[in-house]
C-alpha cells in the first residue's frame, strides 16, 4: 500500500475541482493550473524514482481496496514497466499544456474552465494507465470523453460542433463494445482483476470466447488508437481542437487504446489475439499506407490543413504501433510501447508548433501560410523541421524505434503466426515509411521552406517566446534523448513485456 498512485490521481482531481469551483482570476487560474500539473508531474517523478526497475514486470506501488464486491470490482491501482513511461509522458505533456496555456489561451478564453477540463482529462488518462481492475480501467477510460468533448466543442475551430460529436460518439461506441469485451472476459474468467487475468494467460477461456472478446476489444481500443478504418473521427477532432486539446489527444489519449490492447487484449485473451492478429496486422498496415497517402494528399492539396495532416500522420504512426502489437512478439510490443511514447512526444511537439503557427498566422492552412516559416520565424520553423523529421522516423530520433521494432517484429512474428504473411506486411509498412517521408517533406517544402508570401512579409510576428520554448524544448530534447538512448523507455518495459509472453 502506497500513497503515490492515489496522490497521482488525487492531485489533478483536486486541482480540477478547485479550478471548477473557486472563481479565480485568469492569472491565478493559470498559476494554479501549472502548480497542479506540476505537482502531478512531481508525483509521477516520485513514482518513477520509487520504482524498482529490477522488477519491472511486477505491478508496483499498488493500492488494492474493496470497492464494489457485489460486482467483483476492486479499487486496484499499480504501475509496472509498461505503464510507467506512459504515466510519465502523460504527466509531462499535461504540465506542458498548462505552461503553454499561460502564453496562449484559445478563444473564447475562460482559462479556468479550460484548465479544469485539462486536469480532469489527466485524471482519466493517468487512471487508465494505473488501473489494475477492468471496471476501474473502463471507468477512467470513459472519464476522458466528456472533458475532451468540451475542449473541442467549446474551444475548437469553426467546425467544432460536429467534430466534437463525432469524437465522442465514435469513441463511446468503441468503449461500449470494449466494455462488452471486458464482460465477456469476466464471464469466462470470473474476475475483473487485471493482474490475475494476465497471470492466467487466457487459460480456461474457450477459443471462441477469446476470439469474441479480442475482436470486441480490438474494435474498442481500435477506435481510440485509432485503427483504420475506425479513424475517421480523428482528423476532424484534431483539426478543430484547440492546441492543448490536440496535444493531449494525440499525445496521451490515443495511447490509451494501444495500451489497452497490450494490457488487456494481448495479456488476457492471447489465444483470441493469435487468431485475430493477421487481420489486425492487415488493418494496421492499411492504416499506415492509407494515412500516408491521405497526408500526401493533404500536403499537396490546394487547401490542406496542417493540423489535419498531422492528425492523419497519427493514424499512420499508430498503425505501426498496432502492427507491433499484432506481431505478438516482445520485440513488436516493445516497438509499440516506445512508438507510443515517441508519438506522444513528437506529435505533441508538432501540435504545439502548429499551435504556435496558428497563434501567429491565425491559420493552419498550408496554402494561406504560403511558406518561408524558416525565414519569418526561424526558431518555430526550425523546430517544425526537426519535429517533422523526427516524426518521419529518422534513426537517431525517437520515432525510429517504434517503426523499426514493429517491422522487426513483423519480420519474425510469434510462432503461431504465418511468417510470410507478416513479412509481406512488413514490406508494405516499409513502403509506408517511404511515403511518410514523402508527405512530411512535401509539407516542409510548402511550409517551412520557400519565400515568405506578401501578406506576412511585413507582419510583425514574434518568434518563440518563453512559454513557447518552455513547452517545446523539453519535447525536443526528449525526442532526441529517446532516439539516441532508447533504453530510457525500452529498458523499463523490457521485463514487463517479456513477462507478457511467459
Amino acid at each position, binding site marked *: 500500500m502506497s500513497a503515490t498512485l492515489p496522490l497521482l490521481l488525487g492531485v489533478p482531481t483536486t486541482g480540477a475541482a478547485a479550478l471548477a469551483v473557486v472563481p479565480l482570476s485568469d492569472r491565478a487560474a493559470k498559476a494554479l493550473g501549472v502548480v497542479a500539473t506540476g505537482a502531478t508531474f512531481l508525483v509521477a517523478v516520485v513514482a518513477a524514482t520509487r520504482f524498482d526497475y529490477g522488477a519491472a514486470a511486477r505491478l508496483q506501488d499498488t493500492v488494492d481496496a474493496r470497492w464494489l464486491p457485489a460486482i467483483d470490482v476492486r479499487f486496484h491501482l499499480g504501475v509496472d514497466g509498461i505503464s510507467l513511461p506512459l504515466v510519465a509522458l502523460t504527466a509531462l505533456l499535461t504540465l506542458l499544456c498548462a505552461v503553454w496555456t499561460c502564453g496562449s489561451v484559445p478563444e473564447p478564453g475562460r482559462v479556468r474552465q479550460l484548465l479544469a477540463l485539462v486536469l480532469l482529462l489527466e485524471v482519466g488518462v493517468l487512471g487508465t494507465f494505473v488501473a489494475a481492475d477492468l471496471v476501474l480501467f473502463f471507468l477512467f477510460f470513459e472519464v476522458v470523453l466528456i472533458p475532451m468533448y468540451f475542449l473541442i466543442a467549446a474551444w475548437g475551430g469553426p467546425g467544432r460542433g460536429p467534430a466534437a460529436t*463525432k469524437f465522442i460518439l465514435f469513441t463511446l461506441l468503441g468503449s461500449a463494445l470494449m466494455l462488452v469485451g471486458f464482460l465477456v472476459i469476466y464471464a469466462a474468467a470470473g474476475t475483473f482483476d487485471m493482474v490475475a487475468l494476465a497471470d492466467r494467460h487466457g487459460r480456461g477461456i474457450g477459443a471462441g470466447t477469446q476470439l469474441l472478446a479480442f475482436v470486441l476489444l480490438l474494435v474498442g481500443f481500435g477506435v481510440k488508437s485509432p485503427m483504420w478504418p475506425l479513424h*475517421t473521427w480523428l482528423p476532424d477532432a484534431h483539426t478543430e481542437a484547440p492546441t492543448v486539446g490536440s496535444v493531449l489527444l494525440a499525445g496521451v489519449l490515443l495511447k490509451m487504446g494501444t495500451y489497452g490492447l497490450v494490457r488487456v487484449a494481448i495479456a488476457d485473451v492471447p489465444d483470441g489475439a493469435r487468431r485475430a492478429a493477421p487481420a489486425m496486422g492487415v488493418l494496421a498496415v492499411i492504416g499506415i499506407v492509407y494515412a500516408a*497517402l491521405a497526408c500526401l494528399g493533404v500536403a*499537396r492539396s490546394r487547401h490542406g490543413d496542417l493540423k489535419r495532416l498531422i492528425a492523419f500522420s497519427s493514424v499512420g504512426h499508430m498503425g505501426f504501433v498496432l502492427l507491433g502489437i499484432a506481431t505478438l512478439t516482445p520485440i513488436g510490443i516493445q516497438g509499440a510501447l516506445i512508438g507510443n511514447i515517441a508519438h506522444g512526444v513528437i506529435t505533441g511537439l508538432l501540435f504545439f508548433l502548429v499551435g504556435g503557427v496558428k497563434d501567429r498566422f491565425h491559420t493552419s492552412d498550408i496554402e494561406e501560410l504560403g511558406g518561408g516559416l524558416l525565414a519569418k520565424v526561424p526558431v518555430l520553423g526550425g523546430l517544425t523541421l526537426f519535429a517533422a523529421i523526427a516524426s518521419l522516423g529518422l*534513426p537517431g530520433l525517437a520515432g525510429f524505434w517504434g517503426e523499426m521494432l514493429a*517491422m522487426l517484429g513483423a*519480420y519474425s512474428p510469434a510462432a503461431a503466426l504465418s511468417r510470410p504473411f507478416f513479412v509481406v506486411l512488413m514490406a508494405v509498412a516499409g513502403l509506408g*515509411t517511404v511515403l511518410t517521408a514523402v508527405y512530411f517533406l512535401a509539407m516542409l517544402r510548402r511550409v517551412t521552406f520557400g519565400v515568405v508570401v506578401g501578406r506576412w512579409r511585413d507582419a510583425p510576428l514574434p518568434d518563440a517566446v518563453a512559454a513557447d520554448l518552455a513547452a517545446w524544448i523539453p519535447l525536443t530534447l526528449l525526442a532526441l534523448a529517446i532516439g539516441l538512448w532508447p533504453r530510457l523507455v525500452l529498458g523499463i518495459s*523490457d521485463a514487463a513485456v517479456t513477462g507478457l509472453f511467459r
Partner: protein
Amino acid sequence: MTEWAWLLPALPAVAAALGLVGWRLVPGGPAVVAIVGSAGALVVAVALVVAVEGDPARVHESARAWTPIGGIGLNVGTRVDGLAAVVAVMVCVVALLVQVYSTAYMAGDPRYSTYAAEISLFTSAMLLVVVASDLFELLIGWEVMGLCSYLLVGHYWQTEGARAAAVKAFVTTRIGDTGFLFGIFVLGVGAGSFDVSAVTAGAGSMPHTTVVAGALLLLCGVVGKSAQFPLHVWLPDAMAGPTPVSALIHAATMVAAGIYVVARLYPVFLAAPVALTVLGIIACITMLGAALAAFAEDDLKRVLAWSTVSQLAYMAAGLAVGGWTASVWHLLTHAAFKALLFLAAGSVLRTVGTNLMSEMGGLWRRMPLTFGTALVGAGALAGIPPFAGAFSKDGILAAAREHGGGLGTSVYVVGLVTVFVTAAYVTRLVLRTFLGSYRGHARLHEAPLVMTGPLVLLAGFAVLLGAPVLPSSYGVRSWFGVPAGSEPLHVGIGGVLLTSAVALLAVGLLAWQHRRQPATDPIDALGRAALPLRRAFWVDEAYSAVLIRPVHALAAAVVEIDRRGLDATVVGTGRTASLAGGGLRLLQNGNVQAYLSALVIGVLIVVISVSVAVAA
C-alpha cells in the same frame, strides 16, 4: 587508442550542436567551431590509423549495451580496423578542407552558421557509419547523412529547384534505405545479433537464402546512397546545393558510404555471390549510362555529378568482381580528385555566376591556379597517368579480368568503354570551361587563398594517391585488412597503358574535333543521337509517369475516399440513425387508435410466435 574512436563522430557532432544553437558563445563564430570540430576528428582519425596500422586486419572493438528490444539486446560502440581508420582519415580531410573552403565560398550567407553545423553533422554521421559496431548504429549515421544531404541540398530553399532536389535526394535514398533496414533485419535475425562483427562472422553459416536476401536488401540501400541505377536520379539534381556540399557528398560522405558499407560487410556479400552479380550488373549499367549522360550535360556541376555516379559504379563493379582493395583504393583516389574537381568548379562558378558551360570558356587565363588543379583532377578522373585515378581504376579492371567469367568480362569490357567515354566528357569539360574563348559576361578573377589552398592540397593527393603509394611497403595494400576471398590488387603496366591509351584516344578525338570547330559543343557532333543522352535516358520521366504521378493521384484519391467514402459512411450512419428516428417518429402521429392497433398487433405477433414455438 581505439577505445577513443567514439570521439570521431562525437567531435563533429558537438561542433554541429554548438554551431546550431550556441555558436554565439564561441569566439570566432561558426567557422571556428566547424573547423575545430573537423580538425579534431582528423586528429583522432590519424591517431587511429597510427594505432591500427601495425595489423590492419585486426578489429578493435569497444562496445557497451545500448538497449534491450524485447528479448535481445543491442550494443553501441566502435569497431575500428584498417579500412575504417583510412576511410575516416579521408572523410576528415575532405570535410576539413570543405569547411575551410566554405568560409570563403559561403561568406556573406545569412545562414552560414546553420550550413557549417549541418556539414559538421554530415561529417559526424559519416564517421559514425565508418566506426559503427552495430548495424542500427550504422543505420543512424546512414540516415542522418540522408537528412543532412536533404538540408544542405536544400540550403537555397528560396529557390524551387533546391527544394525539389532536396526532397528528391531524401526520398530516393530513403526508398533504398527501407531495403537496407530490412537487410539489417534479415542478417541480424539470422545471426542472432545486430553487431557488425557477429553478422560478418555469421554470414558464412547462415542459410543461403537468408544471406542472399540480406545481401540483396542491403544492396537496395547501397544503390540508393551511392546513386546507382535505378536510384541514381537524385544525385545530379542534388547539385542545387552549395558547391562545397557537393564536394563533400560526392567525395567523402553519403555516396562513399554505400561503397564503404559493402566493403565493410564484404563477407556477407562473398557468401552471397548472387548479390555480387546483381551489383555487378547494376554497376555496368550505371557506369556507362552515367558517363554518357555526363557527356551530354551542359551544367558543369551536373557533369561532375554524373561522373560521380559513373565512378561509384566502378567501385561497385570492383567489389562485385572481388576487387576489394582496388575499389577501396578507388574510393580514396576518387575522394581526392572529385573533391578537387568540385571545389575547382565552385571556384569557377563563384566567378562566372552560372553553372552552364555554354556561358564559360577560356577561363584558364584569369584563373590559372584553378585551371591547373582542375586539370590534375580531370586527368585523374579520365584515368591518365600519373594521376591517381588511372591506377586505382586499372586495379578494378584488372580484378575484373582476373575474375573472368561472364561477370568479370562484362565489367572489364564495359569498364574499358566507360574509360573512353569518361575521358571524352572530361576533355569536353575542360575544353568548354577553361579553353576556347569566354562566352559569358562576368568579371573573372581567381579565387582567394582559403579556396585555392584546399585545391592545391587535394591536387597533391590526386597525384600522391596514385603510383607513389602503389609499390611501397607502406602502400595501399598494407593499409587495410584485406578480406579473404577477394582478388589481390594487380596493377600492371600493361593494364595502365591500355586504359591510358583508350583514354588518350578519346582526348585526342575531342581535341581534334575542338580544333576543327572550336565554338561548337562536342555533343552536337552526335546530332539526334545525343537526345537520349541529354535526357539521361528518360529515367526521370519514367519515374514520374510510373511512380510519382500515380502516387500523387492515389493520394488525392485517398483524401476523397476518406471524405466521401469512410467518413461519409460514418456520417451516413449517424444520418441514417437520425432518419430512422424520423421514420419511427412518424408512427407517433398522435392518433391513439393507431397506437392501440400497433399494441394489439404487436401482442398478437408475440402470442402467435410463442404459442407456435411451444407447440413445436
